[in-house]
């Protein structure tokens, strides 16, 4: 077996999952989901491993990974914050909330805070337009978020109060 520069135990979990799939044709997206769940993101070696296991070209795996916005090749923070940028949220000032989040977390480049605690991203409409603007943290929905609320939302996830 080729050497992969990733956690061996996690790789084994992924391998067991792939082995458990009967119908391998069309399984790629499901496998990538699982891999991202295990590793938190999809580094190059994980993609290579998947390609060899499924007996498909690595280019195809890379093509699919980069096509869908759900998949990421960058490590993510401990908590993932998604600001809804659907139209309803946008017209109610979601862009200002996003700006404030990035400011409070000192994010200037990329999406992750320097302490690795948070990744801030935007997504397209969670369908809770009645509560616009909406922020999702690890799947929990916060509705009618104002710029002033940003600090208290972040505090909910900062261990033992503020670390910054």
């Amino acid at each position, binding site marked *: 077996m080729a050497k992969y520069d990733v956690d061996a135990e996690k790789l084994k979990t992924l391998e067991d999952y792939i082995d458990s799939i009967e119908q391998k*044709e069309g399984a790629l997206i499901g496998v990538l989901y699982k891999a991202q769940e295990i590793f938190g993101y999809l580094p190059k070696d994980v993609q290579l491993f998947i390609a060899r296991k499924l007996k498909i070209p690595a280019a195809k795996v890379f093509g*699919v990974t980069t096509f869908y916005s759900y998949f990421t090749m960058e490590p993510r923070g401990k908590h993932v914050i998604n600001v809804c940028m659907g139209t309803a949220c946008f017209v109610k000032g979601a862009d200002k909330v996003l700006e404030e989040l990035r400011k409070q977390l000192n994010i200037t480049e990329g999406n992750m805070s320097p302490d690795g605690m948070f990744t801030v991203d935007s997504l397209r409409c969670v369908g809770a337009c009645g509560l616009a603007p909406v922020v999702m943290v690890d799947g929990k929905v916060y509705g009618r978020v104002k710029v002033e609320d940003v600090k208290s939302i972040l505090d909910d996830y900062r261990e033992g109060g503020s670390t910054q």
Partner: protein
Amino acid sequence: MPIRMELLVCGGTGCQASNSNRVLEVLREEIKNANLENEVSVLMTGCFGFCEKGPIVKVMPDNVFYVEVDEDSARKIVAEHVVKGRVYQEKLYVEPDTHEKLPEQSKIPFYKKQLRIALRNCGKIDPENINEYIAADGYMALGKVLTEMTPEGVIDVVKKSGLRGRGGGGFPTGVKWEATRKSKSDIKYVICNADEGDPGAFMDRSILEGDPHSVLEGMAIAAYAIGAQFGYIYVRAEYPLAIHRLRIAINQARELGLLGKNIFGTDFSFDVEIKIGAGAFICGEETALINSIEGGRGEPTVKPPYPAQVGLWKKPTNINNVETFANVAPIILNGADWFASIGTEKSKGTKVFALAGKVNNVGLVEVPMGTTLREIIYELGGGIRGGKKFKAVQTGGPSGGCIPAEYLDTPIDYDNLTALGSMMGSGGMIVMDEDDCMVNIAKFYLEFSCDESCGRCTACRVGNKRLLEILNKITEGKGEMEDLEMLKELAETVRDSSLCGLGQTSPNPVLSTMKFFYDEYLAHVRDKECPAGVCKELLKYYIIPEKCVGCTACAKVCPVNVIHGEPKKVHVIDRDGCIKCGQCYKTCRFGAITRK
């Protein structure tokens, strides 16, 4: 003792985000404390649609509709209404004009003009219990179809009903079924398109969360009609609750033999699998969706051949959207004539709209086709929030356009909206007021289309990018008059030469705003002004001398030190050096700083 009372708690995503789960727990605790568990049941239902006033609790059979219920008022509802039999007045809906309290759901203006077919069970039944769906005539249509009708007969009814695809294009559903029926193949597929990607549209989510069996039943009927044995529901990953409830629904239907082999003791077998999307708007396009289910990049392919001939795994495939499937069972049970009697000449039945934006009552509404925009926005929607002036309503998401005030009396149907340069789309309806800049809105949608363009064809991949660059230039105050001509010409080129629906409709927001709000474009380009005061680079900050008290607060926060003036005297902004950061505007406590 039989159950004498039911408390229905909304469990849609909107109400859950407003803490309806906790309200449900409190109601159950209080009922237990009052020893009424055997007489009163508490149920979590699907979306009531009135997200604005959530969490919602409805008491049956008293038919009392409580809004904005929190933990405290949940306790009071039990103490007052359930125990003492008195309506708890504090949480009734208050009609904003008359200040009258309206306990009955059907009297509330938001519900008055609604006719619920696709949403018939949402907010009425527990979506996680198949027996509740069956009690509401669920799976009766499937039974009728399998035991009394031929596949051709089913197609005939659907064709005569005039049902058209609710996902956007409005293609006649019966014709689509017939085409798939006629394709010869041993294996065929039915796909439910639940990749509801339009920002601001959430009707499919609400149906899946509130009444998942109505979709499964519609799919099974379609499968029988076209001769399919297997179905997929392609649902977006952003809808975890919908996926959860669909899984429950599929398992319960399998247990009762309503999915699986030999349904209702006939030769018909049908089963369904959920496929979860991975965040690509283009996958709502049917050929792209098929590529995605096959595990590849969700890029569209050239049509023809249509999926009805060559679809999933190269087999004939019928794809309809969630709301379309939810309409099927009522059509079978009530007949084609009943359905065709609702709506306009060419658009039959009802349509669910997700009303959002600057309107008082945000939520889901289902109205007969032909209802006017004005009725939806002003009667159901309760008018514009904060007494502001209506500017436009955007329908059809990134594929649609912005419709101005002079067309508010247009009866809504597929063809009227298309004639206005917009489209029905999946039914998003975003209301905009005087504070929204239409150039900026066009830019917002174009950014979306650029992000979501799959990159396969040049017109969409490069054309939209160039359109966005021109719009950026205009909103930054660097636009020239010839940019406007170029914008229009290029938008038309992208529309006419793109491969799939995404590219063909992506210029609609630009073209429709240019058509109806050309003066705003002119103001940006010629006068370098943004009339709505949105485009930052075009804003100019002024100090109103009469209001300025000379507190110096603005001068202190100005990062570039361009505000001058002595303490207790009127200050002045030197606009040459101003970077338009807006700090002074935010800081002034006297409302003395204005921007235009």
